[in-house]
């Protein structure tokens, strides 16, 4: 039963992704651009979900990894013209390594703590990266950031074409989703969930919980770096704005909005927020109320995030008499 349920979910995700890949390029070029931005940012949100949803670590510094990936890409491209041809794939690798390396350093400091202390340490470390981006003028261009006018081209295809670029991003998004999914379904991933639920018990069972959390932290950093590499070519610019606390908070809110511990929920959260903020804002001026309303309603009535809607409907159908509040409180952990 559980297997078929899981399989149905996977099929649903594949169907939705296929629909996105087929439909989006036929919409307007602005929607195509926004969809590309959503997919890139989703990689960052999903990487955060590895920590938040599966390991139980709420990080407020995830934008730092996007930052190193993005600044590395931008600096290589503008100073050394590196990464604009086949070497783009090397830059992807470097970006992931840079994200992982930074996470490996930060992890040493942050993993020792948990709960709100972990939150504060990651916040502080993230702001250190922002400070560097803002102040190290000669390298990062300070407040003005770095413009990257060109997009790579290889195998005779140019990513300057918006549809080609969308498909590249789509490929990276799908690959990241798949890899992260395999990761969380692996025995290693299961033990992370065990740590999230009861770290003490996992310790008694003989797990090195520190190492588990550390490895998850580093892997999340690597995917954050990947998001950074793609972000530069999507936006054409990287500035301290991309590294600042609000970007980390955005990622955290998107993960919670979509549903922590679901991976794909992060993409849905990113989609909802970015479309309200960047698409709805072109149509109406009261978009901020919509965004605020969505946050409030989801947190009040859907603590499991938007991904829990089908489950809620099922519950509501089978047991309509139960109060939604007690239902809502039931899945809250710890």
């Amino acid at each position, binding site marked *: 039963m559980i297997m078929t349920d899981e399989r149905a979910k996977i099929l649903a995700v594949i169907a939705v992704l296929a629909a996105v890949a087929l439909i989006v390029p036929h919409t307007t070029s602005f929607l195509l*651009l926004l969809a590309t931005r959503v997919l890139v940012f989703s990689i960052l949100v999903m990487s955060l979900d590895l920590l938040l949803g599966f390991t139980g670590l709420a990080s407020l510094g995830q934008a730092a990894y996007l930052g190193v990936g993005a600044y590395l890409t931008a600096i290589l491209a503008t100073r050394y013209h590196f990464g604009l041809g086949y070497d783009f794939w090397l830059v992807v690798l470097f970006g992931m390594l840079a994200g992982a390396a930074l996470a490996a350093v930060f992890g040493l400091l942050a993993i020792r703590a948990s709960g709100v202390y972990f939150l504060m340490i990651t916040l502080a470390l993230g702001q250190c990266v922002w400070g560097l981006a803002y102040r190290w003028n000669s390298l990062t261009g300070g*407040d*003005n950031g770095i413009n990257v*006018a060109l997009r790579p081209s290889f195998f005779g295809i140019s990513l300057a074409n918006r549809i080609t670029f969308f498909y590249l991003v789509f490929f990276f998004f799908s690959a990241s989703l798949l890899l992260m999914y395999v990761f969380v379904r692996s025995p290693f991933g299961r033990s992370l969930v065990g740590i999230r639920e009861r770290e003490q018990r996992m310790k008694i069972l003989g797990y090195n919980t520190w190492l588990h959390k550390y490895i998850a932290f580093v892997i999340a950093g690597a995917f954050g770096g990947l998001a950074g590499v793609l972000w530069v070519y999507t*936006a054409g610019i990287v500035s301290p*704005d991309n590294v600042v606390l609000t970007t980390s908070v955005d990622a955290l809110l998107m993960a919670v909005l979509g549903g922590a511990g679901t991976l794909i929920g992060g993409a849905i959260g990113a989609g909802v927020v970015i479309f309200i903020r960047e698409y709805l804002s072109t149509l109406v001026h009261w978009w*901020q109320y919509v965004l605020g309303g969505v946050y409030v309603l989801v947190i009040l009535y859907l603590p499991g995030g938007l991904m829990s809607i089908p489950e809620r409907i099922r519950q509501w159908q089978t047991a309509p008499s139960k109060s939604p509040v007690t239902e809502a409180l039931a899945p809250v952990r710890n």
Partner: protein
Amino acid sequence: MKSNIAARLSALLIGIGLAFTAGLAPAAAQEELRIGFIAPTTGPFAQVGADMLNGFNMYLEKANSDFGGAKVKLIVEDSQAKPDLAVTKARKLILEDHVQLFVGGVLASEGYALAPVSTELKTVYVSSIAAADDLTQRQLSNYPLFIRTGWTSSQPNHPYGQWACDQGYKKIAAVAADYAFGYEQVGGFQKAFEDCGGKIVQKIWPPLGTKDFGPFIPTIKSDADAVFSLMVGPMALQFPKQIRDSGYTKPILGGGTSYDEAALPFMGDEAIGDFSALQYSAALQTPENEAFVKAFRAKYGKVPSYFSESNYTTAMMIEDVMKETHGKWPGADEFIAKMAALKVNAVRGPVSFDDMRNPVQNIYIKKVEKTKLFGYDKPELWNIVIKTYPNVSQFWTYGKDTFLKQPVYSRDFPPCKNCE
């Protein structure tokens, strides 16, 4: 019943038909000029964004949205003063709304982000506010479809430095917001001031958005004859109050945005006697400005700031080009060429362009005074013009080639050789 529906239906059809002919007829007869406008309408810079938009809209209404026969369609997008979002919105304006040109951007970082979009998507970008020096200096060749109707950050500060030197100030301490706009303002001031024999003895960089200057004010050197301050947004309100409260009595020479009319009406008497320099003052005693201030104030309830004037003038310049072409869009390259050749009598005074597409304009040295002006019955704070430097270019008296040989002003350039 049936006839009722039929009657309604036919009425509806006639209505649609009428709307169609009414809608189509003038559109077919008239060219349309689509202008994108990028300004922060939400977030901490929303007030500035409103000032900008009000200025542009006021001119549009004056011209009845008709520029030389072309019907103007203005499409406003919110950048939230974030460079990344400004780029997204610019792309939306170009790809979705097919604008022929876009105007706007507040922060230097937005200007630097938007200019490459104009090159990439071959669309005119008119920067009415974003003042980053290098856009019309060392980097201009990358942006063939870029033109500026506002100013470069250092432009008013070259004559200002000269003026300060002429007043007999010898040593000045600088307190400026810690980002590119601050560096370029201080840089321009320092360059001219020190070339004339003055000394910048100290540079203090409070972060952008500082509201408590407690840690910075006591470090101002006591042997400095005056303070040069460059404040932005809410900082501008706090600094004069806090430094005067601390007992500091020496003159304050503010950079352009430290005392501009976006902030001045909200200041108290502590600002009286402070100086600033910019290409516009709402207290400018010309008939054009008096009419502008009165009309603007009647409409929007506040004195226009340079944010409003600059966008009003930008709209006027766009109209001038469109009048030349009798309402036909001349193509992006041609539009830039025509605009750069304009010589206009703007509200701020005569404006023309140098060969790097930056305005050559008057720079006003201003002093805050509490007085009655333009027939308003209450004494208010005004930026009274005390000296005018006519036709100031972004290169001041240095000459383009010499000027461009030096690096762009930064935190470390010009070096603070008289600091300890």
